[in-house]
């Protein structure tokens, strides 16, 4: 029996140059309002003493957990999981109670002050329908983002993952949320990670 399709976003932090093209491409592609971010690039460091210093970039967006806290707490079932493993928000049902913002351990949901509804990364679901990768993936200047079905061993993402599995990590695995966003640790500049 074929394994279930699982969309995964793999981010190789070793290649991220902190250019914020992903952050901006996301805003333009999804018409995200000012002061609302679905995707943020953060710089980590520098820490340590010259020349042994750590400094790297870490982009963060909805982790599309397989066991999402936000879905559990949503009183109107506005937040839900699609068949492909994407966490989405039905804006016909959201009334901005923000329980999900409190429940999400990753701080990646924002209340849009204009619409009073919660927003977050949708993995460019409209692009996926057309067979296109999310905007952040195609816009990445460092080519550090890989997207696809990680359960398909022939996919680029599965191959890249298996070549680099020793550097792979998820954020807060201890919480049992089981994110679909996998990071690869930088080879240099993240000795304290």
């Amino acid at each position, binding site marked *: 029996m074929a394994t279930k399709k699982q969309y995964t976003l793999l981010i190789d932090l*070793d*290649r*991220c*140059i*902190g*250019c*914020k*093209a992903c*952050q*901006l*491409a996301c*805003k*333009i*592609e999804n018409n995200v309002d*000012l*002061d609302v971010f679905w995707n943020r690039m953060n*710089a980590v*460091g*520098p*820490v*340590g*003493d*010259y*020349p042994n*210093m*750590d*400094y*790297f*970039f870490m982009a963060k967006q909805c982790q599309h957990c397989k066991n999402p806290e936000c879905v559990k707490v949503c009183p109107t079932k506005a937040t839900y999981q699609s068949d492909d493993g994407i966490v989405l928000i039905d804006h016909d049902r959201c009334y901005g109670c923000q329980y999900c913002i409190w429940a999400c351990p990753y701080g990646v949901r924002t209340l849009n002050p204009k619409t009073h509804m919660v927003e977050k990364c949708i993995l460019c679901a409209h692009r996926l329908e057309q067979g296109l990768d999310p905007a952040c993936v*195609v*816009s990445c*200047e*460092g*080519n*550090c983002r890989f997207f696809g079905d990680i359960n398909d061993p022939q996919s680029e993402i599965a191959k890249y993952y298996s070549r680099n599995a020793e550097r792979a990590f998820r954020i807060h695995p201890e919480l049992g949320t089981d994110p679909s966003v996998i990071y690869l640790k930088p*080879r*240099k*500049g993240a000795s304290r990670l």
Partner: protein
Amino acid sequence: MSAYHYNEDGSYTVQTNCFECHCKCGALCYVNAEGKLWKVEGDPTDPRSEGRMCPKGRSAVKILYDEHRNNYPMRRKPGTERGAGQWERITWDEAMGDIVEHIERYRKEFGPQSIVFGQGTGRGTNQWQHRLGGINGVNHSCWPGHVCLSPEMTTQFSTIGMLNFMEGADFKHTDCMVMWGGNMAWSEGALAAGELNNFRVKDRKLIVIDPCGQAPMASRADIWIRVRPGTDTALAMAFLRICMEEKLYDADFTKKWTTLPILVDAEAETPITQDMVVAGGSPEVYLVRDVNTGELVDMSDSRVTSGEVDPMLDTPVFEMTAVDGRILRVKTAWEALRGRVIDMTPQRAAEICWADAKLIYEAGKLMCESPTCAINMFQGVEENTNARYTIHAATILNGITGNIDVRGGNCWHKCYNDLMGPHLTGGFPDTHWEWKLGKQYAAHYVHSHPHGVWDAALTGKPYPVKAFINIAGNPISWSENPDRVVEALKAFDFVVTMDYFMSPTAQLSDIVLPSAHWTERDYVADEFCQEWIYAQVHAVEPLYERRSDVTFMRELGNRINPEGWPWKTDEEILDYQLEPYGLTWKELVDKHIYAAYAYEPKKYEKEGFATATGKAELYSFTFLSAGRCDPLIRYEEPAESPYSVDDATAKEFPFVLSTGRRYVNFYHSNYRGIPMLRELAREPYILINDESAAELGIKEHDKICLESPDSPHPVHMKAHLTHGMHPRVIIAPHGWWQGCPELGLPGYPNNSANANVLISDKHYDPDLGCAGMRSSLCKVYLDK
């Protein structure tokens, strides 16, 4: 194949090149059936950028339709003061008529030299701006060339007849990538972002020389040298010493193709020419001495390059009898160079540069021992009062390690020679050399030095300048001591500014013209394009009454100097630009990309170097002739450094200040008003070491003031504390003037956040006129 790809519904895609910076990444512009540009993406078929595109390029849609853009020609309302912000809309015909009438009047009364053309970094139109001036009698070119591009171009063209740093650094094929004074992954993503990562797969080496470690390149480097701003010459000299003393140089290239084997006076280090030692000899023949026979041979003799003659490099001082019977003490230029660098041990360089001797040694070894090594230098080394020495020293290193014009080293892309050649710029008439302003600030700077232009505007000396025609430039942002620029602009009788936005300079103008965005214009993309040229075609017709900068320059040129500006349409001028490549504009549009000079290594073996002697003049006859009159290199402290000012000044201004660090989301003083870009960097922040900040009671996000020995008033910014910088270095950004009402962020009037206020206009590099924007002194305190 065409640049335009139409769909059935009337929508189309345009293959063109971005111009949110000089890097000109391949771009795909998507226009919908209503004719609206709705998306810009990187063009994966561009061999340089391979589809990469930074936030600026991706924001082109926002920039094109931004509501604060200049859309119509505007004239200052009669009877109002300049800067009062009272404008009336006029037609292009009225604007052109007004401009031409003023220029004709001043030319008649004060001569053509009273007309100053200028720009900022420009939008890829340097050659046409030069032509406006040159054809008019003097190429003032009032632009920031003295701190950007010209330092490298002048030094490299003078010594090796090419510009092989910048786009010439062949990061794609090199074994060792040296990023010196720049963070190209952000500032020129097309040429470095991919290579930076491909390196990590291919296990090649990256050396970064940068005072700031809070940057993607420094943080990934195999060796990061945290240099004191403005002391890079010492580093380059230490590398040269390693190369020479450990015999890691390419002796074959150095002997055959450079001026380093020539004989020079042992003390004065001036050339021993043939007439000095051979009766009836020529004063223009430089001599080398054959190792085996002792024969004196003309440096340019073909037996040198064929290998028949083996010029000596290493030699103790020896004596020769001159034709007048004097005994001459002689050595080679190579030995003169050795004498200059011999004391620059890694330890000595480390003391000067506040750096680590072991890392300096390792970097030097790596650069010399790698099969190929590509060096790129950027503004970090150009904006210092000793810039010529640094760039010259690195060029010598590039040469004697055998990395000039080879794959993996620093390639010679000849488009750059064309760009600055007489076909496009019109050359320099004799009157140019007579009328050029500010000669006292820079001996080898080819245009009027901007300080000389401001002097002339304010004092009328050496002659009055009346009109300033400023195309894509904001000198109040780019110039050192901008408060004086404000006064100078007011002193001009007539100022025209053509730009995207109502910049502080535009606000002080009499006429403001609306520039077309790159998505609205047809132009040739050439500089920074390596061996290629591209058709940068418009995606949409110009909105409102915006016009291409080149259209304006062509029409103005045609009205005031038709003999040098015969073209009646943009297509005609673009055809002329492309003539040397045997191509018309239409043909280029069909091809989109054209390999103007398919890369061939070591072109000098066939045609010599494009210098007066045909050699790589690493010992430079040009730099011997004027300015410092020094053909080689030496270490010189920045004019304003802890070690070059008096003790009281050094104590009052304890920090070394480096300004102008690049943002990935802004281009110089542009785009603080584009909300989506401003969101990525909302306010101007200095970088200061956390421990130094703690001593001063400064915390993260605190408002601070900066002052320098010559600053007329403080500059107001905010503090970002970083552990990555030397405790005595502060880095401050440039280009802050514009507000962003959509985000509720105010503008910064009266140069209140303009970093150049801190930069003195009293000290310049005597050869190239560079101001010390990257190496001045400052103090910092809480803004109460």
